[in-house]
């Protein structure tokens, strides 16, 4: 029997060392967001590590989705929004004047709560983004369509009907198609805004399993209302409340021994 090496920190016996040593990818520094004069995000500082799953939790209206949308500048599309502070991805300020937002959104993909496939064939849903970004070679597109569908655990279910309408798929399949579409253009980061909240339990399990597979290649930031989902899939969890980041730590810590009373009250359902 090989000698058992004891962890250096006797309190922490289950945290895989990779979680602690992962490199930072996204950094927010004192981010504030205003809708007109109302301040929706208050001085948020956070560092999100690469190739891990980070979950944002908190009650409705706490700012978690708003904050998520800062990372691909989706809030730019809303009138009257003003953002201060810094959002860095790989050390680059994504709000700098010379940033090409289309390029940014290529690096930072997004999956929404409601699946939103284009009213096109399954194949074209994935090929569309590739063509938009200049890929013309059909065999290359064929290859990416297949690898993306495989990556989203959908290939076996749709390989015989790639050219039928995406709208004929079930809700869970449509959501996986949206994930396939997001990974087809090889982003670094995938933002997910409650990707499973409209799905039944079985479809939810598939999405959760998929997320755990995807983190081998991508950095995933997910907003979820479902705390058990956060415990099942995420490595780090951030708890937001009324525009503030209250606590951010390893998911195991947040759900078994949170440092802040507000976090404890929220995860035990005593909130409000």
């Amino acid at each position, binding site marked *: 029997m090989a000698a058992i090496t004891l962890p250096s920190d*006797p309190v922490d*016996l*289950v945290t895989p060392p990779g979680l602690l040593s992962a490199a930072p990818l996204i950094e927010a520094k004192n981010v504030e967001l205003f809708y007109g004069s109302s301040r929706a995000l208050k001085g948020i500082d956070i560092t999100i590590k690469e190739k891990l799953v980070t979950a944002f939790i908190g009650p409705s209206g706490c700012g978690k989705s708003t904050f998520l949308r800062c990372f691909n500048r989706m809030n730019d599309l809303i009138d009257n929004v003003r953002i201060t502070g810094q959002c860095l991805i790989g050390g680059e300020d994504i709000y700098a004047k010379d940033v090409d937002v289309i390029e940014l959104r290529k690096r930072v993909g997004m999956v929404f709560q409601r699946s939103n496939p284009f009213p096109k064939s399954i194949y074209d849903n994935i090929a569309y983004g590739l063509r938009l970004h200049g890929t013309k070679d059909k065999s290359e597109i064929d290859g990416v369509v297949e690898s993306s569908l495989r990556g989203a655990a959908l290939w076996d279910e749709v390989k015989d009907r790639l050219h039928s309408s995406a709208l004929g798929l079930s809700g869970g399949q449509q959501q996986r198609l949206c994930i396939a579409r997001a990974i087809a253009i090889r982003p670094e980061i995938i933002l997910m805004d409650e990707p499973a909240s409209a799905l039944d339990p079985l479809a939810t399990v598939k999405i959760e*399993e998929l997320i755990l597979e995807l983190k081998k290649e991508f950095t995933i930031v997910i907003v979820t209302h479902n705390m058990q989902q956060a415990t*099942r899939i995420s490595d780090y969890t951030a708890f937001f409340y009324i525009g503030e980041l209250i606590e951010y730590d390893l998911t*195991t810590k947040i*759900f*078994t021994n949170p440092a802040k009373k507000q976090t404890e009250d929220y995860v035990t359902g005593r909130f409000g």
Partner: protein
Amino acid sequence: MTHFESELAALKQKLLLMASHAESAVNNAIKALVDRDDDLARKVAEDDDKIDHLEQEVDAACIALLAKAPLATQLRLITSAMKIARDLERVGDEATTIARRSLDLSQEPQLKAYVDIPRMATMAMAMLNDALGAFVNGDTARARAVIPRDKDVDQLNKQLYRELASFMIEKPTTITRCLNLMTISKALERIADHAKNVAEDVVYLYEARDIRHLGATAA
């Protein structure tokens, strides 16, 4: 296999690793006693840390898994794992007790040939082995069969007590040795109790039936 299922499989593996350490600790402690091997006895006592640490690892893993809100069999597996880990940790402690008493005993001439103690050890370890085999294979019939055997070990323990008491009455110079042997006998009796606990947990795990405290016939 889902990610969660593979985490549960890893938990089971960790428990089995713990069990293998606990089993070899008891076997080595008995061997140290019979062979009057002080080095081996000291090694058993030193190695108990490994089992203690594994118990902490199992508990920490279980807490993390429980936070994911498992249900049904998965829920029972995790709660059973915490209990089995505690029983195995205690088995390790009993092995340490046997080893320490063996060190004391080897300071004096051997009182008598050891027959009943190795026999009790064999019985208790066979119970533990069957309970763990039932855990691995989901074999509740095998687990149930472990439970009545606890009585046999209790019987041997009582018999040994009577015998050692008569030694002490006859010859007070044997008292220290007899007390050490009584402690060892009690430790083996406790190991059989832990094996029985594990067997009951295995029935609960696979059948969702709590058969503790029912008496041998009702189980």
